[in-house]
């Protein structure tokens, strides 16, 4: 899954993901017709609009393969959100099937014990997105992947605190969102690393966007890009 955010703002993320998987010997298909997991509409409280787009996604990814997503947030939407979204709907079976096959990128690497080889050396600091941490219940797999790639990770304080992105929340309550982002950006810099890395592009855009506005010298990359060096 490319993810709409990657297509809109950072195509290098999905392209790096594909390269990383191919380096591990995985046969990767990137369906041309894919669009979006529909999370923006779902979390904004418009379930019917979300379903219409999600139906298309279910069809596009209907094969038997595992579906790898460079985003804890989008993976979480499919794995955790689709069962609720399609409960009692005609597509329920297909939705549950897709949910069973969907997995985040670093989780996929860990699950199949894959090693993409040397990546960037770092040091970087790791931001655990809320969806990765709580919906996918995962904080180990990205760190494992970075360690295998020889990348040094310096942990920041309160890695389990939300960065304040939250999808539409960032636009509806910008001041509050920005304040949380600033706290996260400062915590990141205080780790001693100059670059923040995450499995979620939305968080990174927000953190680095706040950092840039506030003059905090923080760089950012997606974990796929760090592995793809």
């Amino acid at each position, binding site marked *: 899954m490319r993810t709409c955010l990657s297509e809109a703002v950072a195509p290098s993320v999905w392209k790096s993901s594909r390269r990383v998987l191919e380096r591990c010997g995985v046969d990767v298909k990137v369906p041309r017709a894919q669009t979006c997991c529909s999370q923006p509409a779902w979390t904004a409280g418009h379930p019917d609009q979300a379903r*219409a787009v999600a*139906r*298309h996604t279910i069809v596009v990814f209907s094969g038997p393969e595992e579906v790898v997503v460079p985003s804890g947030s989008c993976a979480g939407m499919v794995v955790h959100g689709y069962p609720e979204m399609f409960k009692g709907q005609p597509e329920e079976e297909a939705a549950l099937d897709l949910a069973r096959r969907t997995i985040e990128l670093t989780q996929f690497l860990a699950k199949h014990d894959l090693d993409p080889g040397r990546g960037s050396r770092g040091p970087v600091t790791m931001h655990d997105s809320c969806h990765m941490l709580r919906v996918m219940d995962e904080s180990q797999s990205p760190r494992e992947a970075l360690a295998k790639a020889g990348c040094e990770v310096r942990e920041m304080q309160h890695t389990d605190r*939300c960065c304040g992105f939250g999808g539409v929340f*960032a636009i509806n309550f910008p001041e*509050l969102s*920005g304040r949380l982002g600033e706290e996260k950006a400062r915590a990141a810099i205080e780790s001693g690393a100059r670059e923040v890395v995450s499995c979620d592009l939305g968080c990174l855009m927000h953190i680095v966007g706040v950092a*840039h506005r506030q003059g905090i010298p923080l760089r950012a990359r997606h974990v796929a890009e760090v592995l793809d060096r």
Partner: protein
Amino acid sequence: MSTRKRRGDGGVAYLDVQGTLRERTVDALRDRTLRGNLDSATTSWGESRDAMRSDYGLDEMRERAREIRRSNIRNLPALLSEMQAKVREAGGTVVRAVDGAEACRYITGLAQARGVKVVAKSKSMATEEIKLNEALEDARIEVVETDLGEWILQLASEHPSHIIAPAVHLNREQVAALFREEAGTDDVPDDREGLVAHARVRLREKFAEAGIGVSGVNLGVASTGTVCVLENEGNARLVTSQPRIHVAVMGMERVVADWDEAAHILQVLPMAAIGQDAANYVNLITGPRRDGEADGPEEFHLVIIDGGRGALRGTEFEEALSCIRCGACLYSCPMWRSVGGQAYGSPYSGPIGAVITPLLEGPSSPASRDLPFMSSLCGACGEACPVGIPLQDLLVRARARSSSPATRKSGMAFRAWSRLWRRPSTYRAWMAGWRLMLRARGKDGWATDLPGPGAGWTQVRDMPTRWPPRR
């Protein structure tokens, strides 16, 4: 950030709330004192909470607690019938109030019929919800909050900012000033212990004077008709033992079946709320004093409030009724931690407040339009909840139920979005247009001023137009 209380009727909201929710959050973010107090409060809670998990197995206890509360809600009508019967058997009176207005009428009527001039209260969110203080004051009855934090807020004419620690946003200097004003003298100590000792004496006068003591109920136990009132200070014990009449106000969902369940919940509640394995005082009250007893109220009245709760059973929001009002979700919430409880404009703040306030007030209320959206859906609340309520999921469902000009506008935007993004060709066209716009707006790899909904983004942060982002 003091707000003046005005009288009002109906609904759950504080009617004296100023501005929009967003404006209130902006005000709160500017308040450094508030921020400092919230930070230290939530940090110490977090530390205690970690100790509960590692030393007391809180995580395992959550599972059972969740099952108990869900079964309570499924069996609610039977449990309430049993509770009612047992309280009556013990010599108490039970009133099932459909809404807050009915509850206030009953309690005010009782006070007037008994010639009561002073009512002493211990902390109760339910009485805030039904605006009992206002109703009594309208009937010229003096109401005194005896919980130290609530009394402080009463002096400051403010609303509580947290379920468990209502004055957490005020510091020692602010409190001393309020005490001086109340006592009409400057001769009030400055140190924490002195302030507490001062309050002790002032409030004991009220306990001696009060004709009715009003308490909340943390938990009702149906098998014996017992109400459980937890506290640390001892004021609830005085409120429920000294005045001649005790009125206990209970939300209808706060019932467990028996003492096996009660024991479990009574252990989990203080762990989640204050990070300790016990509250100092747990008062288990069954009806009025018995014949031959020399103290204790002669009358016991249990007022059970529906207020919209019953209607949630059998809906997608039913799990919200499992709540035991511990406040853990507040302390764990990045929003609450940043702006405090008063910004929510409801007696119930934090994630649980953002879910139930709109449900109790109705889908077209201002709270419904705003509260469920003031969340990044981070899920820390659901993780912290000792009875396993999936609050982040309930927030999304609450958003779907909300109905206002703003949400209708958002609905129209997403209808357009949906039409474009369900087909690859229109999706790709949209993407191409977006990327062009971003390139055009970007300077040195950053856009500082986006149009339309993007303006909310660029108000407080830049948008990277290249990735990885340029320095």
